[in-house]
């Protein structure tokens, strides 16, 4: 077998979806990340979707322990990690069991033959061997004995046990997929060296496995590979591939820096929010204090204490932890101090599906508190968008002296995409307008425009005052049980939050500005909906896409914009929470597309819904698409 023959010269394709799947111990997340970095360097646009099991390491070889990582990369703009993979790498029978159904018909399947022993098959729940029982008919197969090949590759390497050698299998798979998509190996080889700099013998073994995989590709006849995907025409600038959780953290740091405040982040670990804490904990030099509290209540109340001290207070959790914070959010809105609360949503209710994604905390965010307690709610739409939304949430919190809830989710937080980096000095300054002048100071006087109250921080002479959760006098802030004062304050707090909507930019639908169907979306469905609208327009439907960053208060121009479409489709990963919210707030009828499976929408699911609505002649009713 010689070098690549002319018949094997890469074929140009414009995008691909690859999924790596294996045991949680198999290093699939690392493999995916490495592949992603190279795609980014090659200038592809891309989006990723990691899919962890709930167990740290469920028994090896069981379906419970399967970990997956999907990437879509393309020569054009990419909005989601893709529906069905074109290529599925399955490191063992359990991974095959879990993911096979998703593979595109005719797609490429890369399997480790060695792992299909009877015991493995039983552990994975296969009744018979899929390699021989025609389960795989209709797919293209690359079936290799990974175990043997990595053993060969590492032969003669000193200081390595058999276990170490077998641990390199993921790099074998990576090499093979590099070849399939004709990726540049030089950068990756360097990266392997660097990653294992402290354990050079392990580095060398992985390198050899990686090369063995690559060479295996070159020598195999399977498939019509290799393919080539040209760089996307991204807008000029410097990029970085960013995880949503990282971008959230950086957005908070940037907002603190641009407002000249300390950042205090009180948090308690919970999937999928913990990574925000991990990221922020690294950046102490920015005046960032991270505090791993004893629980979520301590986390949020410590952040409130810090805000009283003049810091930008922030906290993050997921649904169950946010539930615990709700009492304290009432305090924050009563004492009117800046606080950013990130809810990284996951499958609910209760412990639910902790490692899966969902959009089912909207009700909790908007309505989930005792008393009349309006809190602005924003939602991030994608990993890179997290930066901007965190910055915007901080701005609102600081300028309006209010807690703000930012909804993210598991898919956004763990997902990645190329982020065109803003220039730090081009980011807008946020003026915290700290009060220092004792002259005429009243703790609850208000800015006539924003209705914000003065932020007077301990250490400032002459502004000593007391705040608390009892209703306060509308000027002095002293405790007040006066009935009319309570009505006034309740309405003022509501009005203050409503005024935030005045600062929103105009809503501009993507796609058609009016037409048959308007698709209204929020949060992480952005990607699938964007692509679905592009596809549907390509097939001749007049459809626009309105994506909400601001969930509460809703944009003032939303009713007008929605009225331009004959009917409104509202896809959500829940049973219709924004649908009810929009109807309740605005009296607007929409049609829901709802999925509650712990997974993002497929583009195709949204597209068919658009098509169905564009076709259907019936009257507009408020319902869920059957």
């Amino acid at each position: 077998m010689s070098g690549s023959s002319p018949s094997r010269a890469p074929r140009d394709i414009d995008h691909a979806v690859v999924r790596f799947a294996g045991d949680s111990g198999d290093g699939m997340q690392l493999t995916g990340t490495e592949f992603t970095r190279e795609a980014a360097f090659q200038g592809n646009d891309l989006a990723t979707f990691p899919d962890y099991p709930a167990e740290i390491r469920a028994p090896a070889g069981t379906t419970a322990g399967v970990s997956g990582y999907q990437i879509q990369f393309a020569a054009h703009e990419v909005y989601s990690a893709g529906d069905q993979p074109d290529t599925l790498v399955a490191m063992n029978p359990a991974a095959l069991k879990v993911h096979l159904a998703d593979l595109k018909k005719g797609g490429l399947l890369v399997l480790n033959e060695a792992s299909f022993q009877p015991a493995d098959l039983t552990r994975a729940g296969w009744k018979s061997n899929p390699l021989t029982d025609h389960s795989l008919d209709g797919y293209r197969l690359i079936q290799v004995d990974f175990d043997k090949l990595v053993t060969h590759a590492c032969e003669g390497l000193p200081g390595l046990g058999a276990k170490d050698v077998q641990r390199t299998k993921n790099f074998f798979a990576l090499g093979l997929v590099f070849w399939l998509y004709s990726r540049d190996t030089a950068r990756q080889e360097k990266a392997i060296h660097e990653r294992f700099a402290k354990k050079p013998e392990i580095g060398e073994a992985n390198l050899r496995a990686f090369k063995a995989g690559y060479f295996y590709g070159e020598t195999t006849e399977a498939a019509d590979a290799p393919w080539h995907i040209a760089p996307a025409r991204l807008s000029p600038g410097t990029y970085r591939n960013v995880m949503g959780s990282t971008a959230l953290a950086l957005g908070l740091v940037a907002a603190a820096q641009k407002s000249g405040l300390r950042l205090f982040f009180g948090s308690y670990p919970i999937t999928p929010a913990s990574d925000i804490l991990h990221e922020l904990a690294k950046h102490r030099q920015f005046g960032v204090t991270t505090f791993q509290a004893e629980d979520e209540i301590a986390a949020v109340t410590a952040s409130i204490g810090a805000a009283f001290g003049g810091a930008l207070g922030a906290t993050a959790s997921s649904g169950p932890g946010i539930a615990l914070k709700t009492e304290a959010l009432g305090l924050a809105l009563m004492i009117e101090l800046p606080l950013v609360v990130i809810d990284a949503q996951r499958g609910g209710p209760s412990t639910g599906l902790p490692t899966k994604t969902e959009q089912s905390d909207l009700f909790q965010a908007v309505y989930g508190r005792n008393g009349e307690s309006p809190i602005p709610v924003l939602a991030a739409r994608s990993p890179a968008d997290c930066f901007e939304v965190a910055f915007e949430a901080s701005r609102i919190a600081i300028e309006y002296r209010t807690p703000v809830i930012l909804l993210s989710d598991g898919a956004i937080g763990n997902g990645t995409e190329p982020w065109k980096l803003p220039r730090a000095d081009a980011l807008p300054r946020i003026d915290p307008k700290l009060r220092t002048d004792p002259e005429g100071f009243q703790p609850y006087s208000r800015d006539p425009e924003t209705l914000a109250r003065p932020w007077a921080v301990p250490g400032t002479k002459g502004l000593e005052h007391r705040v608390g959760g009892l209703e306060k006098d509308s000027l002095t802030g002293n405790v007040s049980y006066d009935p009319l004062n309570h009505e006034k304050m309740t309405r003022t707090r509501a009005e203050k939050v409503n005024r935030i909507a005045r600062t929103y930019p105009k809503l501009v639908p993507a796609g058609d500005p009016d037409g048959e169907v308007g698709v209204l979306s929020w949060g992480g469905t952005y990607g699938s909906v964007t692509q679905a609208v592009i596809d549907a327009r390509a097939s001749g439907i007049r459809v626009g896409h309105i994506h909400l960053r601001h969930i509460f208060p809703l944009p003032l121009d939303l009713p007008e914009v929605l009225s331009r479409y004959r009917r409104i489709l509202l896809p959500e990963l829940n049973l219709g929470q924004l649908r009810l919210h929009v109807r309740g707030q605005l009296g607007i009828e929409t049609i829901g597309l709802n999925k509650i499976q712990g997974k993002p929408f497929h583009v195709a699911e949204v597209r068919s819904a658009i098509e169905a609505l564009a076709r259907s002649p019936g009257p507009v009713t408020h319902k869920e698409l059957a």
Partner: protein
Amino acid sequence: MTGKLNLAKKDFVSDQEVRWCPGCADFAILSTVQKVMPELDVPRENIVFVSGIGCSSRFPYYMNTYGMHGIHGRAPAIATGLKMARPELTVFVVTGDGDGLSIGGNHLIHALRRNIDLKILLFDNRIYGLTKGQASPTSELGKRTKSSPYGTVDRPFNPLTIALGAGATFVARSVATDTAHLATVLRRAAQHKGAAFVQIWQNCPVFNDGAFDSWAERDVRDEALIKLEHGKPLLFGKAKDKALRTGAGFSLEVGGTDGAVVHDEMREDLALSMALAALEPPMPQPMGVLRAVSRPTVDALAREQEEEAARKQAPDLEGLLRSGDTWTVEAQA
């Protein structure tokens, strides 16, 4: 007037009307705190009182400093955030036996474990005052209250053993009726660098009148209480004729003054402070400072890490955004 700042008690009196029941021992504590404050010689604006919810937690409104009347049980957590964000401030926490030991017990023990530099004053009236008289975690077993008409069935906490067990670096007890002693203990707590826990027995004349009379009243207290003094033998009784001595099998026993154990607040191990803390009637109950050891505070350590990080790498937002693998897309012709 005291100190360089020439502050006086009246400087710490806020303009808010004090709203406790007539005869409530909280008045005495408030007055004592206001009296001790000038001695700290800390500018008013650098002092913050944080509380939870309860009669006692009204305290911040009456102090002419910064203050926050928080939510039930969370004062130690609020104060922790405040102190970590602003280590230069002097932060007091005021809490009750319900606020601090029932709903807020966890925040309390974690604040003590962390050794965050807070002065935590627990007003212990062995009852829920604000909600009108239910049993608290310090109510004695069998107590009949609105919520326990047949008598409570759960044994009370000893706040001192809890605090010591949690690793508190400063633990003390006083009583509202002995304001001189209280002032001394408050002074000591304020001087301590780290988490200082002070249990203050406080009579609630409305819902638990006389709870401490059997040992804290003037006529009995010399026999029923033992005032701790660092470096001094553990003597008590009107004539100081009784002492705590090492008893059989590692225990404290009451005996004559020869061989009295000498009190040592600064002992690293917990044996003595814990043995004292655990004393309950008919043994004499300890008053004063049980433990005062020096340990780095979490607020200082965190701030050091930050300064260290900044020394190693100056904060550079542009650099932060650009960290990791980046690539550049050139404008296309």
